[in-house]
């Protein structure tokens, strides 16, 4: 099936992109990798007229670097680069976990970080790891630039805090210290090329003696209108011993804290069951990684 016709714009920098967005209003839509936008476009009616703003020339939005203790990911970084980043393996392996199960190579080579986050699917793979890392996004509009924590970024399925004229430029979070580890687990019936029924990301910081959990953030996907943090489970684990019973209790709390729906993939009840089972498994991996991430360790973190 052919794509419908659309107006097409190729800005050369962020300012131009933002102006176009402002001028085109609701008709205007950014396109980066195209793997979400072009599918949505096929569903539009014959009398709709979209204006696509192609970000392809904004190559300075594709970067992946650590600077001054902050890890910065450009919005146009493609998912394949996330998957293959040694820097991310060391700092946020949960994001590499997610990039690995993200669709297929053919999609990863095109899809971008910014696109995945702005598409705002509650099942988006890249979202939970970044939410668990307490990342923030940098948005630039015609007049100003601002930072929005991911906690406040997603408003509902397909909706974000992005204003009409804003371009998401980068995602950034603190480079973790030692004794931290993260992991992402996704449940889908198939081992690849599938979508999350439920997903979990956990980001754990252990006390230096590894006897207790100092701090943990847990993000869940596909169990609420947006990706969410489960704070009661997090609070429960703060100060707790990193052992199976605590993880299971956290799983039960997380399961009660989410609000899944029933759809063609799974019933709400089954999703809650999955949360209960997956949270402890994810925590275990995150803790293992934290245990391996110590000053004396020479090995690069496994993921």
């Amino acid at each position, binding site marked *: *099936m*052919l794509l*419908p*016709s659309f107006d097409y714009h190729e800005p050369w920098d962020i300012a131009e992109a933002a102006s176009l967005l402002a001028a085109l209003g609701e008709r205007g839509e950014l396109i980066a990798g195209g793997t979400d936008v072009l599918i949505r476009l096929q569903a539009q*009616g*014959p*009398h709709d007229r979209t204006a696509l703003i192609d970000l392809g020339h904004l190559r300075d939005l594709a970067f992946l670097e650590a600077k001054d203790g902050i890890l910065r990911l450009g919005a146009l970084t493609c998912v394949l680069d996330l998957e293959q980043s040694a820097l991310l393996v060391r700092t946020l392996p949960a994001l590499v976990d997610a990039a690995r199960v993200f669709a297929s190579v053919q999609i990863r080579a095109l899809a971008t970080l910014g696109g995945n986050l702005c598409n705002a699917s509650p099942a988006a793979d890249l979202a939970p790891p970044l939410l668990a890392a307490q990342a923030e996004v940098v948005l630039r509009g015609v007049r100003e630039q601002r930072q929005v924590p991911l906690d406040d970024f997603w408003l509902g399925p397909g909706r974000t805090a992005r204003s009409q004229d804003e371009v998401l430029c980068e995602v950034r979070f603190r480079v973790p210290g030692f004794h931290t580890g993260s992991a992402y687990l996704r*449940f889908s*019936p*198939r*081992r*690849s*090329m*599938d*979508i999350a029924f439920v997903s979990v990301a956990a980001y754990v910081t252990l006390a230096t003696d590894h006897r207790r959990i100092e701090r943990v953030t847990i993000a869940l996907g596909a169990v609420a209108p947006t990706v969410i943090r489960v704070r009661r489970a997090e609070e429960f684990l703060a100060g707790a011993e990193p052992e199976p019973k605590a993880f299971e209790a956290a799983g039960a709390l997380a399961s009660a804290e989410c609000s899944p729906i029933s759809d*063609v*993939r*799974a*019933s709400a009840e*089954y999703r809650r*069951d*999955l949360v209960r*089972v*997956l949270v402890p*498994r994810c925590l275990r991996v995150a803790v293992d990684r934290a245990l391996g991430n110590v000053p004396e360790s020479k090995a690069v973190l496994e993921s």
Partner: protein
Amino acid sequence: MGTDSHVVGRRVPRLESWDKVTGRARYTADLRPADALFATCLRSPYAHARVAYIDSSAAEQLPGVYAVVTHANAPEKRFNRANKWPGDLDFLPQDETLLTSVARHVGDRIAVVAAVDEDAAREALSLIRVEFEVLPAVFHVSDATQPEAPTVHEGTGNVAARVSIETGDFAKALASADLIFEQRYTTHAANQCPIEPHVCFTVPDDHGRITIFSSTQLPFTVQRAVANVLGIALDRVRLVKPEIGGGFGSKDELGLEALCTLLALRTGRAVYMEYTREEEFYHSHRHPATIFLTTGVRRDGTIVARGAKVLENTGAYASMGPKVLKAGFYHWAGLYPCADMRFEGLCVYTNLPPSGAFRGYGNPQVTFAMESQMDEIAAAIGIDPVELRLKNAVRRGDRHPLGFTVESCGLENCLKQGAEWIGFAEKRENAIHVSGAQPSAPEVSSAVLRLEEDGTFTLLSGTAEIGTGTTTVLAQIAAEVLGIDVEGVHVVPVDTDQVPYDPGAYGSRTTFIAGGAAKLAAEDARHRLLDFVARELDVPPQAVVCGRGRVYVASEPDRGLTFPEIARAFARSDGTHLVGEATYSPKQNAPPFAAAFAEVTVDVGTGIIRVDRLVLAQDAGVVINPLMLEGQMEGGAYQGLGYAISEELVFDPDTGRILNPDLMDYRLPTPADMPELHTIIVETSDPSGPFGAKGAGEIPLVPIAPAVANAVFNATGVRIRDLPLTPERVLRALRERSAAEQ
């Protein structure tokens, strides 16, 4: 076969391999004429609705639109999309029209538009004004068979067909049993999912003929179907079959061809139509079924009475539903023959999209039930599951319910070798299944072999290569008989103007029947070669033999003619090509057999089943080409796996829409999901097949689901009788079992 065969039994790569790996192979969409109009259908969004009002005038006036057809100006002939000639017009309900004024399922065809391009066609669709009067709909067999149920077809009840067969005295035999087992099983709708969706284009010429290029499994059958539906003379229709990107039964019926031909006739232009992937999901699917089994056994495991009741959901149009139902009976009855059996089946209309043919054709459904129950019986009695089957299974020499004698049966070896390979006796964490799929009812196939001037042979056969390796196998058979290399046989693409009749590729029939015809035609050609050379050399016919591309005097090998020499001499003397031909109509159909063993791991936290190992042992008679046969076995196992654990068409219970008509939520297994797969070929030889070969294409799919279900039982103690075994279903079953234990 023995070591004296020189091409039969060899792993010959498929003849069209190089075209396919270089991108040179041409499928239907590749041949699309640049000036063809684009046509597409307006489809009902409702499962059951009357078209109260339809106005296509705005669409017709749109520049670039060449034709708009609705029920008001479409041929009214009623047909069955699965008609095969000649018998089906009397046997199958002729319940469908090209376009309808009563939509009976979501997606039913209301109108069709042909326009200069896709944009114009889609815009024209949006300009057709339709008002629907929504009617009550039914989606489940249980609802459709209620007395006050809405009827899918006005004037007829919702039972499209009924099958009732009894042998011996079932009730009496059941009463004499030591133990009676009664269970209910359900199976679901699965989509064939060929990677190439349905596609066709039609080209009218200046003499009133239409050439159809179509991705179909049935060139001749569809040619006749188009003529029948449109009420035009058969000789006005020609069908050419390009390479096909898979069918698996989805293309085993009339698809887009009649509509596309109608538009070509009305506009005088070439017309192109294709399905979107979503339309492909709506086209047809495996009949969902509910199967009740009642089996009486003696304490030693001998089956003394067998009863089955099968309720089949055939959707809005009957299609081949009655035949699928009957096939289910044959497969169920034929595997464990028993003197006292009772079978009742209902083929029921609902307002779901029509069910259709899918590799296995009724067999996977009844066999899931039958083979699950065998393990349930084995467990209850305390007998080894393999032993139970060996005790009761059909054997060589037995009489098949269809009335013929089973002349080859490798089932015992399939069971024993499969069991040994997977370590069944030691592990017990796996399960087995057996099945005897059979080629479809006796029909006919013809073949012609023509000797060309360069000494090669051209083979004309009407059967359709759809990716199964048919062409290669036919060439091997002919080459074997003629004593030449397989490269010396060229199989021409199917064009109904050029090749002799064959109904098409379905029912595991191509090697068996078309191959049989090719063998006879080759023998006829060889006979003529011998005859001719004998005359040329002035020796008695018995004195000459054929081999290595020559015909020569057996006692004086230097005296002979090469095939090119024969061709030229024949042209000089007879003025034409030397031709061998044959028509083959076998009296009986040799069933193939298979057994599958599965080893699974069940994640009791999530319910996910991982099939770790799968062993499939299959008896296809004498193997013409092991490489092709393995391909069918591995591919069938793959589809069987999807059917067992992940593929499921989900219908909205209120609207009858398909909720997952896409490749994300219709879950085909990915490479990472495949188990370690081991195939075992068990050779037998059947006197009725070419060189002893039997059909092979469908049966590898059939045993997988019950093997997996039985393995899940062995691993967890939980028996699940409903397909597919999705993680949620498994987890729920595990939970229910724990709750029951408390």
